[in-house]
C-alpha cells in the first residue's frame, strides 16, 4: 500500500466531480491510499498570480505546509494545481525575498514551510509507482479495439518537470495500450484546451476545443482519454455540445478521464467509474465492453462526420 498526501483542488468538487469520484474508486484496487489534506484551501492557480504574485505564492505555500506535516509526497490530479504547486516550490528556493515574505505570512497563521515537499502529478504516480505491468495485470475488462485519442493537456508536461515529453508525451497512450485499447496518433495531444479563459473568452476557448476534437476525430478516435485535470475534462466533455452548436459539427466523442478509463478496465461498473457524470455519454460506446461482448478491431463507427 502506497500512501500519498492528496490535494484535489477546487474544481474537483464541481466540474471535475466525476473525475474525482473515479480516482477515489480506483485507488484501493491499485494499492494506493490518498490521504486528503484537511481543510485545504485553493492553490491560487494562474488567475491569482495575475492578481498578486506574493499573495498567490502564499496561499500555494499554505497547501505545501499542510502537506509537509504529513511527511508524504503531495499528489494532485489537477494539472493547474500541479503547475502552481511545483512552481511555488522551485521559486521559493531561488527567490529568497519571496520566501521570506511567504514565511512571514505563514507564521501569522502558525504555519511553516521548509521546502521539503515533493509535488507529484497523479498520472506520474500511476505511471512510475504503480507501473504499466501492475496496471495491465489488474485489467479485468480489456478495452480491446477501442480507438482512443490520449489528451495530455498543457500543464501536465509543461513547463519542464523532467518526465514524459514536453511536446509529444505518450504516457497516457502507454497506459491505454496496457489496458488493451488502441491509442491513435494525436498531434494536438499536448496543446491547450483554453479552459483557463473559457469563462471570459468563451469563443476563443471553443475554437481551441474544436481543434482538439477535430484532430482526434480526423485520426479515427472513437473516444478521448483525457488526463486527470478537471479543466481539460470539462472543456472536452461539457463544452462538446457548445462546440457542435457553434461550428455545426457532430462530434460524439465520449471523454473518459484516465481514472474513469482505468475503472472500466479494472472491471468496475458504470456508476463506479462515474461515467454517469459525463455530458457526452459513453454508454453506447462502452456497452459492448460492459455486456461482455468485446468488439472486433474496426467494427465500431468513427465518432463524427467531418464538418467540411
Amino acid at each position, binding site marked *: 500500500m502506497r500512501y500519498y498526501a492528496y490535494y484535489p483542488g477546487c474544481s474537483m468538487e464541481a466540474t*471535475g466531480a466525476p473525475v474525482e469520484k473515479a480516482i477515489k474508486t480506483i485507488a484501493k484496487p491499485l494499492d494506493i491510499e490518498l490521504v486528503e489534506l484537511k481543510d485545504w484551501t485553493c492553490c491560487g492557480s494562474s488567475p491569482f498570480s495575475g492578481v498578486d504574485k*506574493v499573495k498567490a505564492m502564499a*496561499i500555494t505555500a499554505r497547501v505545501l505546509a499542510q502537506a509537509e506535516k504529513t511527511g508524504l509526497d503531495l499528489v494532485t490530479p489537477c494539472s493547474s494545481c500541479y503547475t502552481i504547486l511545483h512552481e511555488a516550490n522551485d521559486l521559493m528556493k531561488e*527567490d529568497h525575498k519571496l520566501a521570506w515574505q511567504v514565511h*512571514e*505570512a505563514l507564521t501569522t497563521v502558525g504555519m511553516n514551510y521548509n521546502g521539503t515537499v515533493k509535488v507529484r502529478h497523479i498520472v506520474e504516480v500511476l505511471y512510475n509507482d504503480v507501473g504499466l505491468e501492475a496496471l495491465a495485470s489488474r485489467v479485468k475488462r480489456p478495452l480491446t479495439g477501442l480507438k482512443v485519442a490520449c489528451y495530455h493537456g498543457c500543464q501536465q508536461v509543461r513547463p519542464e518537470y523532467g518526465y514524459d515529453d514536453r511536446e509529444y508525451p505518450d504516457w497516457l497512450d502507454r497506459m491505454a495500450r496496457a489496458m488493451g485499447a488502441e491509442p491513435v496518433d494525436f498531434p494536438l495531444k499536448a496543446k491547450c484546451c483554453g479552459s483557463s*479563459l473559457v469563462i*471570459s473568452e468563451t469563443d*476563443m476557448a471553443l475554437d*481551441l476545443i474544436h481543434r482538439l476534437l477535430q484532430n482526434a476525430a480526423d485520426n479515427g478516435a472513437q473516444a478521448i482519454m483525457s488526463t486527470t485535470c478537471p479543466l481539460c475534462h470539462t472543456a472536452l466533455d461539457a463544452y462538446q455540445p457548445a462546440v457542435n452548436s457553434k461550428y455545426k459539427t457532430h462530434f460524439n466523442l465520449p471523454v473518459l478521464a484516465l481514472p474513469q478509463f482505468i475503472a472500466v478496465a479494472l472491471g468496475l461498473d458504470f456508476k463506479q467509474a462515474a461515467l454517469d457524470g459525463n455530458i457526452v455519454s459513453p454508454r453506447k460506446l462502452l456497452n459492448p465492453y460492459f455486456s461482455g461482448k468485446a468488439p472486433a478491431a474496426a467494427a465500431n463507427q468513427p465518432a463524427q462526420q467531418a464538418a467540411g
Partner: protein
Amino acid sequence: METKLKPDFLNEVASIPACDKINECIQCGVCSGSCTTAEHWEYPPRKIIAMIRAGMKDEVLNSSSIWYCVSCYLCTARCPRDIKPANIMHALEAIALKENYKPPTKTTTMYRSFARSIEQNGRIYEFGFMLEYFLKTNPFAALKMLPMAFSLLTHKRMPLLPKAVEGRHELNRMFRNIATGGYR
C-alpha cells in the same frame, strides 16, 4: 497615442519573482511563434517584452494583449534563454489590476471575481464566481451558457451552494500580513 515612456518599467518587471531573466531576451520570437492565442494579441508576447524594455508601460497595460495568455507554457518550454513569458504576462496582469488600468477585456473582471471567491470561501465556488462575473460583465452572455450550466447541474457537476472552509480565515490573515508588508 503619445504617452510618456517609463524607463523604470523594465526594472520594475525584472524584480518580480520568476521575471528576472527578462533582460536576456534576444527577441527571437519563439514565444510569439508558439503562442496558442497569438492571433488575439494586439502585441504578441515578444513585442510585449520589447515594449517593457522600451518603457512603454501605459501601452502594455492598457492593451488587452496580456490577458489572452492561457498559461499553456509553450513559450516557457521553448524559450532559448529560459525566460518565462507566461509568468511575465501574469506579473503584468497583477500590476495592471493593482494600478487600476482598464484594458478592453472582461478577463480582468473574471480574475477579480476569482480572487474574491477565494477570499470569501477559501476555495473557488464555481457557480458563485461565474454568476458574479456574468452579472458584472454581460448577463446576456450568461444566457448562452445556460444549456451547458444546466447539463452540468443535472450531472451533479455544479453545486449551487458554496462550501466555505475554515481555512479561509487563515488565508485572509495571510493576505492582510502581505498587504501591509509588500515587496515593491
